[in-house]
């Protein structure tokens, strides 16, 4: 247990718990009272927590197994689309065209029946399972081929980037049946609860916070297990691990798949809170931004990755509102700063101020 919830994890979970309890309370206070918080901030906070979850997912495979995926945005988007498809089906006959069978964009395209891959999405449990299964399956198949052929390092990063780019192009096409350029939007409710109702928003926010905490603990449990140590071993000396009898590709596929499913979960929680999912989520730049969050927070720390995401997206919200032109420069600058000055991220910076425990005298290296 102490291994699972160390000091950082404990502090982070405690802070998360406080925010999860206090923010909804503050949002229901009368406007004008000292601690009142505008209710529109709830879905915004929920969105931030989705990004934090996405960062934890990437850190699990990049920070521990050394798999630098530049395509995690794709798994996030796929999870988002799965949830979006369900929300589209829930609109039912309340769309502009009032067609009970088909979402508006299909009516607009002149389609007269639901494509087969939309079957089942009217069921929430089915969509929820798909939000995990589709990213997981894609990661599994993709990882199986890549890791079996021993693609790693830069080459793997490039093909993951190509993967998200290919999906971006595919999802832009109307014929694909996912709403093309506009994506999926105009959602009304989920499980019968209106998405614009404050109580639904609070429920989604709390659910996101719980998911983040759960995934942090799952990721931590994986990394402190022997399997997690094998992953780090693969990162440090892959061939040594192989000659020890570990089938490296199985470990890589496993962690890549788990990570992709967490990213899918983040996407599925994101969509009902922001109210839209479109192909822009597959943009290669999105996936690169996730890497910046993790690098800034501290690679291989999980909690740091979550903090990195929160810091960067908060900065982004502020900058894009005040100096819209500056954001990309700021992102680039941050990346350079982290690479040059903070190789272990913000958490690494904290470590530097921590009193060190006395180390045994080191022997001179031969």
């Amino acid at each position, binding site marked *: 247990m102490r291994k699972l919830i160390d000091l950082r994890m404990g502090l982070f979970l405690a802070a998360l718990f406080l925010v999860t309890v206090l923010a909804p309370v503050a949002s229901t206070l009368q406007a004008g009272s000292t601690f009142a918080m505008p209710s529109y901030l709830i879905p915004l906070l929920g969105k931030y927590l989705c990004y934090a979850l996405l960062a934890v997912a990437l850190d699990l495979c990049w920070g521990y197994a050394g798999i630098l995926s530049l395509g995690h945005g794709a798994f996030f988007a796929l999870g988002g689309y799965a949830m979006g498809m369900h929300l589209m089906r829930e609109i039912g006959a309340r769309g502009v065209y009032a067609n009970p069978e088909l979402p508006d964009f299909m009516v607009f395209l002149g389609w007269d029946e639901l494509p087969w891959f939309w079957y089942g999405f009217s069921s929430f449990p089915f969509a929820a399972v798909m939000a995990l299964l589709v990213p997981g399956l894609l990661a599994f198949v993709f990882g199986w081929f890549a890791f079996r052929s021993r693609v790693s390092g830069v080459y793997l990063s490039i093909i993951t980037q190509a993967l998200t780019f290919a999906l971006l192009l595919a999802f832009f096409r109307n014929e694909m049946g996912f709403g093309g350029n506009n994506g999926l939007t105009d959602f009304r409710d989920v499980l019968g609860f209106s998405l614009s109702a404050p109580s639904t928003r609070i429920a989604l926010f709390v659910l996101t916070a719980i998911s983040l905490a759960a995934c942090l603990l799952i990721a931590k449990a994986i990394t402190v297990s022997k399997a997690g140590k094998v992953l780090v071993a693969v*990162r440090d000396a892959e*061939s*040594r691990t*192989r*000659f020890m009898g*570990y089938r490296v590709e199985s470990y890589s596929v496993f962690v890549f798949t788990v990570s992709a499913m967490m990213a899918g979960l983040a996407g599925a929680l994101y969509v009902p809170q922001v109210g839209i999912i479109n192909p822009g989520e597959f943009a290669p730049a999105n996936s690169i931004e996730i890497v910046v969050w993790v690098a800034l927070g501290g690679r291989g720390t999980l909690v740091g990755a979550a903090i990195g995401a929160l810091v960067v997206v908060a900065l982004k919200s502020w900058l894009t509102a005040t100096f819209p032109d500056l954001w990309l420069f700021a992102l680039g600058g941050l990346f350079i700063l982290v690479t040059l000055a903070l190789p272990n991220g913000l958490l690494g910076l904290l470590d530097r101020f921590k009193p060190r425990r006395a180390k045994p005298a080191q022997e001179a290296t031969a």
Partner: protein
Amino acid sequence: MTAQLYLDGVTRSFDGFKAINGLSLSVDKGELRAVIGPNGAGKTTMMDIITGKTRPDGGEVLWNMATDLTRMDEASVANLGIGRKFQKPTVFETHSVEDNIRLALKAPRGVFASLFYRSSVAEEAKVTALLDRIRLTHLRTEQAANLSHGQKQWLEIGMLLAQEPQLLLVDEPAAGMTDAETMETAELLKSIAGERTVIVVEHDMDFVRALDCRVTVLHQGSVLAEGSLDHVSAREDVIEVYLGR
């Protein structure tokens, strides 16, 4: 006595250059064998072929005269009971010394077995005993990256022992060691042989002499001579390609 490891007519070329050229070798169970030869003779490539890293172009590599090793990958070969130490010492730098040993300990290697693994008292005792044997007990919680070159060599040998292999392939273990450490390493390998089969590649003649075992001289990818160190070192051709330099 049947051979535990049997190579016959093995060839392998890289870009037309025959790194291994009709190599035949037979090592008995429990034997200690030294393989010597000038740089580029194909010693490391031979180990690559035995351990499934490199596929030979032709020839046979048999384990206990039954299992064809040329069709297996590294993990399968390792799980048969063949362990290997690299020429360049390779340990898990960010893991502690004891975790390096723990990861190597003989245990199921699957993902889910590792995920739910709990080490037993018996296993922890094994770790302690091994650390003692490789003289790294005082550094057991130290990060492996902080070890000296010689200590890393010993740690890697310890990891090899933790795997409890039947055959150990040890590539230049004495590189970077002091004279005293070199002799200790020779003693350690001698103490392992008998119970396990050991093949050692080494350049250092004092080390090979200390091993006091049968010697195979490799040259241009095939066996030039075989016998006791005194026997091979007396041969004209061996002196010419190797010892005379």
